[in-house]
Structures are given as structure tokens and as C-alpha cells.
């Protein structure tokens, strides 16, 4: 397909390039006519290579003309003034000129032609290839040798200049790409710019597989010209995952379409690898330095996409913060604005009750009914605010080593009069180890569960605590009506209430329980007891409490 020549330490790649149009149409003749020798010097610039092919013939013409001009000048100089041997310099000058302008071939041609012209026109006998003085043979040899040497050196310099210029062009294009990417605010636009770049520079297509927020790879901005096999789209192809894993630029020959090659390049962003760039391009373009350029493009893309990712993250965080600030502002305002009138109402109604009691009025019952309603509203407010706080997931647990017995006792004390007329059994071993949890919240869980049992008509409630090596198990069971089977699955959802519920309450208690237990990394379950009634079981993770130096051992 092409040949590679080592040239002055640089690698030059000659390759016949078929114009894409002719390639696609399949007209061999036109294709051959259009076939031009391209020199892809490392970074493969097309424009300058095309120009160079046309200038080759011109080079030979120029070489011939320069020899002719030198010969005319040589002939016009009187031989008495200039020795024929010195005329050699003029021919060598022409060789340097041709080599600089037109490269090696024309320069060699120029050197040979120069020797012949010098022999024919300048060395006696004139207008003959015969040589009168044998010394001239030596002159010819040196002339040819110096000409070749000059050709070699000059052409080398020329190629270095070409290479540098091509590299500069490639660097400029990369720079332009970098500039465009820097102004990019949308991943789809990044894909579009890359596609443009790869199409222009490599004549290929590209697509980007990028990690989303859940670290799953997905196609970023799918285009009409899929790079990877159609049936592979939609889910992550294995080889994309493997490049993601290895971090190596990899070529997949089997997967490419005919005449194309497929290259997968990891997108290593500054923080970490975040995706894979898939590029397909005509086969003759996959040359080591192209791969190098591809790596630069991949780095630019990865950096840009990661920047966009972090912009997203930052904006999300800002939004979250703002939302959270608003939420807590509303919650605390609401809580303050509701609590103030409720506090005043409870206080005033209590005063009213006292007064009615003192004067022996008959509206005591009415006042007490109002009071219980106000207290109910107050509890409802607490529940709603708690639910809102817990659901936001922003509740900070104050986990300390707690005594389970103490919390159960505190919950029973908190419920106070509500347990009057109910039997509450507590089965908590007195040697139960301390367990780490937020006491205020766990007391609330127990209060809600026990209150729930009483509220639904249980006469008997039992609280049992047991530990295993890694769990604390707490059970609250009752002899109430039990749980309807159809409610078991959703009983911990907010606003779900049993059929026997009294009209007060919104059905928030159990969802608050679940949120609190889950915040502790535990779980809570509800079931009906076979002997009737309900059983709530909650489990919390547990570890061994710190040692307490007992004073006996200190003494």
C-alpha cells in the first residue's frame, strides 16, 4: 500500500491516496488518474503533499533550464579570464538551487546533466564528449560527487523544513480545536467538534463513550454515522469496556468496515479515566504518529468533558445547597410560626380550664376537648416537620452509647397517661450491652410504635430487646386488631393508615420510624402475630461497646 523510507533520521511515508469521491464511486480508472503520491510526514498534511506531486515534473524542467542557463553564462565568459575548472562552481550552484526548491530527484538529475554539459560545452575539445586532458575526468568525478553530496544535504534540510511546517500546521489545528473546546459548554458540541476535526484531519468518524453519574458507560450524543457496529449500540461493547480497563490505545481490525480501521483511545481526564474515544478512518492513516496526534485529541476531549462534568457537579451542588437552605428556612419558619400560636393556645386553654374548674362552670369538658385538639395539631406539626427533615436525608445522628433499658423506660415515661389502663411488659435483660444510636430519635421510634399499638386498640403491649454479635433486635408486639394483610407491604409509607385508625393522625408515625431506623443502617418490619395483634421488629447494627474501667478493678 505504501513504502516507508528512512530519510535523515525522519520517517517519511509515501502512500498512494485515493480521493474519497472516486473511492466511493468505485471507478477504477478515475481512481488511478486521481491517485497521487502523498507524503504523509508524520502528521499527514494533505494540502502540501498534493502540491508537491505536481511540482516534481516542474523540478526536472527547472533542473534542465538551470543547466542550460549556466552553460550559456559559462560560454559567454572568455576562457582567458575564467578557467574551465572554475565553471564547475556555477554548475554546483545550480544543483544547490534545484535541491532547495525541488528536492532530491531533480537535483540528482541536475548534477548529472551539469557534468555532461560541462564536458560537452566547456572542456576542450568543445562540443564533444571527448576529453583532451585526462585531468578533467578527475574533475567530472569530483563534480558529480560534490553535486550528489550537496543534493543529499540540501534535500535533507528541505525535508526537515517540510516536516516542521507540517507539524506546525497540525499543532495549529490542535490549538484551534483546543480553543474551540475551551469555549464549549455542552458535551454534544464537544462530540460535534471532534467529529469535524477527525473528518477533516483523518477522513474518519468518531464517537465518544463516556461515564455518566452512575459510572456506567454510555454513548455521548449518538450521531448518524455510527463508528461501532450497529448491533452493539445501546449497550456497552465489550472491547470498549476492555479499553476502559487497560487504558491502552487499541486497534480492532475485525470490527472495522472494509478499507477502514478502528482505533479505541482511552479518555484519561486529569482526575481519572472517564471514557473511550472510538475513531474509524481509512486504513492508510493509521500510522504511529497519527496515533500520537489521536492521543492529544483524546486528552483535549477528556479534559473538556471532565471540565463540563465538574461544572455540572458544581452547579448541582449549588442548587442542592440553595434548595437545602430554602428548605430549612421554610421548615424553621414554619415550625416557629406554628409553634408560637400553639404554645399560646395550650397555655390559654389550660388557664381557661383552671378558671372553669375553680368557678364550677359546665364548659370544662368543652375546654378539655379543645385542648386535646390543639395538642393533636401540635403533634401533627411535629410529625410533618420531622418527616420533612428526615426525608431530606440531612439529619445528623447524635450517636452515643446508649442503654436500651433506659430508652424503653424514657419512651414509656414520655407516653405517660396514654398508657393508663394498658398493660405494658418490658423484657429487656439487665445485662444487655450498650448500643450506639441517637437516643432522641430511637425514643421517638419506640414512642410511635407503642403509641400506635395503643391507638389501634391494644390492651397489652410487650417490648422485647435482644442482641446478637452484630445486631440489636427490638420487638414491640400487641394484642390489638393486627395488621390487614393488604396493608403489610405499604404500612411504612407516609399517609397509610389502618382501617381501625381514629380520625386524628395522618399515618406518619410508622414512616418516621422507618426513616429513623434506616438512618441508623437498620431495618424495621411489620407482621401480624399468629395469636392476634401486630408485631413490629426492628434491627440495628451493633458493635462492641468501649470498655468501662470498673472501680473495683481500679482499687
Amino acid at each position: 500500500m505504501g513504502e516507508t523510507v528512512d530519510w535523515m533520521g525522519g520517517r517519511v511515508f509515501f502512500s498512494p491516496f485515493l480521493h474519497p469521491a472516486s473511492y466511493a464511486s468505485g471507478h477504477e480508472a478515475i481512481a488511478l488518474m486521481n491517485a497521487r503520491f502523498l507524503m504523509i510526514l508524520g502528521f499527514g498534511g494533505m494540502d502540501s503533499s498534493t502540491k508537491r506531486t505536481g511540482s516534481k515534473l516542474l523540478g526536472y524542467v527547472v533542473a534542465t533550464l538551470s543547466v542550460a542557463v549556466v552553460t550559456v553564462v559559462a560560454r559567454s565568459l572568455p576562457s582567458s579570464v575564467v578557467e574551465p575548472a572554475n565553471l564547475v562552481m556555477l554548475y554546483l550552484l545550480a544543483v544547490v538551487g534545484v535541491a532547495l526548491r525541488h528536492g532530491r530527484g531533480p537535483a540528482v538529475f541536475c548534477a548529472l546533466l551539469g557534468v555532461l554539459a560541462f564536458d560537452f560545452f566547456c572542456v576542450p575539445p568543445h562540443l564533444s564528449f571527448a576529453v583532451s586532458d585526462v585531468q578533467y575526468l578527475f574533475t567530472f568525478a569530483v563534480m558529480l560527487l560534490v553535486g550528489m553530496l550537496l543534493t543529499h544535504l540540501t534535500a535533507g534540510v528541505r525535508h526537515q523544513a517540510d516536516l516542521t511546517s507540517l507539524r506546525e500546521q497540525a499543532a495549529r489545528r490542535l490549538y484551534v480545536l483546543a480553543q474551540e473546546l475551551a469555549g464549549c459548554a455542552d458535551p454534544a458540541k464537544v462530540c460535534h467538534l471532534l467529529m469535524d476535526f477527525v473528518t477533516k484531519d483523518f477522513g474518519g468518524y468518531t464517537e465518544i463513550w463516556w461515564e455518566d453519574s452512575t459510572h456506567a458507560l454510555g454513548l455521548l450524543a449518538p450521531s448518524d454515522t455510527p463508528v461501532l457496529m450497529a448491533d452493539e449500540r445501546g449497550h456497552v461493547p465489550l472491547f470498549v469496556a476492555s479499553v476502559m480497563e487497560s487504558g491502552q490505545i487499541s486497534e480492532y481490525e475485525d470490527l472495522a468496515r472494509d478499507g477502514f480501521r478502528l482505533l479505541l483511545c482511552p479518555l484519561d481526564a486529569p482526575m481519572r479515566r472517564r471514557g473511550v474515544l472510538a475513531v474509524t478512518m481509512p486504513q492508510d492513516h493509521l500510522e504511529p504518529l497519527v496515533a500520537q496526534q489521536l492521543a492529544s485529541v483524546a486528552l483535549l476531549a477528556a479534559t473538556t468533558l471532565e471540565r463540563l462534568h465538574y461544572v455540572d457537579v458544581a452547579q448541582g451542588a449549588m442548587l442542592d445547597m440553595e434548595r437545602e437552605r430554602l428548605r430549612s428556612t421554610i421548615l424553621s419558619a414554619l415550625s416557629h410560626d406554628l409553634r408560637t400560636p400553639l404554645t399560646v393556645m395550650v397555655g390559654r386553654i389550660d388557664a381557661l380550664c383552671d378558671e372553669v374548674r375553680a368557678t364550677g362552670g359546665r364548659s370544662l369538658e368543652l375546654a378539655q376537648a379543645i385542648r386535646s385538639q390543639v395538642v393533636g395539631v401540635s403533634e401533627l406539626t411535629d410529625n410533618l416537620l420531622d418527616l420533612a427533615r428526615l426525608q431530606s436525608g440531612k439529619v445528623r445522628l447524635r450517636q452515643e452509647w446508649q442503654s436500651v433499658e433506659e430508652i424503653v423506660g424514657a419512651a414509656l415515661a414520655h407516653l405517660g397517661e396514654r398508657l393508663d389502663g394498658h398493660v405494658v411488659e418490658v423484657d429487656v435483660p439487665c445485662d444487655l450491652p450498650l448500643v450506639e444510636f441517637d437516643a432522641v430519635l430511637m425514643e421517638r421510634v419506640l414512642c410511635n410504635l407503642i403509641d400506635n399499638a395503643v391507638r389501634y386498640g391494644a390492651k397489652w403491649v410487650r417490648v422485647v430487646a435482644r442482641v446478637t454479635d452484630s445486631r440489636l433486635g427490638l420487638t414491640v408486639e400487641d394484642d390489638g386488631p393486627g395488621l390487614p394483610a393488604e396493608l403489610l407491604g405499604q404500612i411504612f409509607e407516609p399517609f397509610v393508615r389502618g382501617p381501625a385508625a381514629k380520625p386524628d393522625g395522618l399515618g406518619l408515625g410508622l414512616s418516621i420510624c422507618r426513616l429513623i431506623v434506616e438512618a441508623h443502617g437498620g431495618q424495621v418490619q411489620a407482621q401480624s402475630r399468629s395469636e392476634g395483634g401486630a408485631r413490629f421488629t426492628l434491627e440495628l447494627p451493633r458493635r462492641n461497646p468501649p470498655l468501662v474501667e470498673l472501680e473495683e478493678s481500679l482499687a
Partner: protein
Amino acid sequence: MSARVLVLEDEPQIRGMLCQSLVSESLQAHGAGSLAQARDALGSEAFQLAIVDLGLPDGSGQDFIQELRAWSTMPVLVLSARTQERDKIAALDAGADDYLTKPFARGELLARVRALLRRGGTDAQPVLNFGEVRVDFIHRQVWRRDEEVHLTPIEFQLLSVMIAGQGKVLTHRHLLREVWGGAYVDSPHYLRIYVGHLRQKLEIDSARPRHFITETGTGYRFVL
């Protein structure tokens, strides 16, 4: 002469309700809506009790209590909302004696006020009886139903500190500092274990204590 109570509460409605409740108990109430007003009042009159709301427009109730404790042992009752758990504990640590969470029953408020006012006048007694228990501070002995109960030195110390602060809310930090020393203020598990011991030795039902009351998340309260 009835006791004078300073009511420091920025919500005029609640302040009015509180003052009215106190007056109906034949107490003298003086309302203040801000720290500045409270300072003025304290400068001009003598008070026997202060009721302090935690959220004030010109400073925190906690600062006020700290300021007050520099020169006065006057009992302080803190009013807090359920969302002000940390502030409440800070206020109690700063020297407040008790707290009420809004909304509170009027009876509860007056009972606390009476308890706090009474406490000012009680002298330490050499022997104290509560429930089935008799504590002899002079001989450092404890009896329950005429049977001597053995308490370890730390248990006795804890009992003494709790009895000395009877009726008051004693924060975890306060108890740890008084009984174990400053190095233990962040080791509340010591307190949990030893309060458990006291309950098992002195309460009828340790799961439903009547004297060593748990103030969940805050501390303990000893009641006779």
C-alpha cells in the same frame, strides 16, 4: 412577699401568656422581650427566678445564662423548641436548671416554677428518704427496705450529685465532670452504666424508674 420572676421571651403572645400564668399563681412577673431589656430589669430589681427563651432577637439565651451565672445562682428555666436540642443542652451546660419544650402544659410550667423556687430554700439534710430508700450522707450508707445496699464509691458519689441537684435537669457533661472529672466529659457510656447500676439497686422497676428519670438526649433528673 411573693417571688419575682423575669420572663425573657421575644414573642409577645407567649410572654403575655407566661406572665398571666405566673400572676395567677400569685407570683410577680416581669416581661422582657430582648437581652437588653432583661439586663436593665436585672440591674434595677432582684429576681428569684428567670424563664428564658432560647431564640432571642439580640443574642442567644445561652449567652444570657452564662452572663447571669457569673454573679447569680438564681434558678433558670429554659424554653426551647423541639428543633433546638443542641441549644437546649448548651443552655443547661451553661447553668440553666430546667427546661420546657414548647408547647407545654400550664400545669407543667407552674410545677417546674414552684419546684425551682422551692429548691432555693432547701438546706442539705444529713439523711434523705425517697421511695423505699434511705440515704445517710454522714455515714455514707444506703438502705432499701431496712436492708443495707452496697454502693461503690462512684455510685455513691453519683447518687450524691444527683440528689444535690434534685429536681434540676443534670446534663451528661455536668454529671461526668462532677463524678469522674473533666477528662470523662465525652465518655457518656460511663454514666449510662452507673445510672443503670443505681436504678437496679434502688428502683423498684429499673425499666420504669420513678426517681432516676431519663431526660433523653440531655441528661438525668433526680426526683424524690
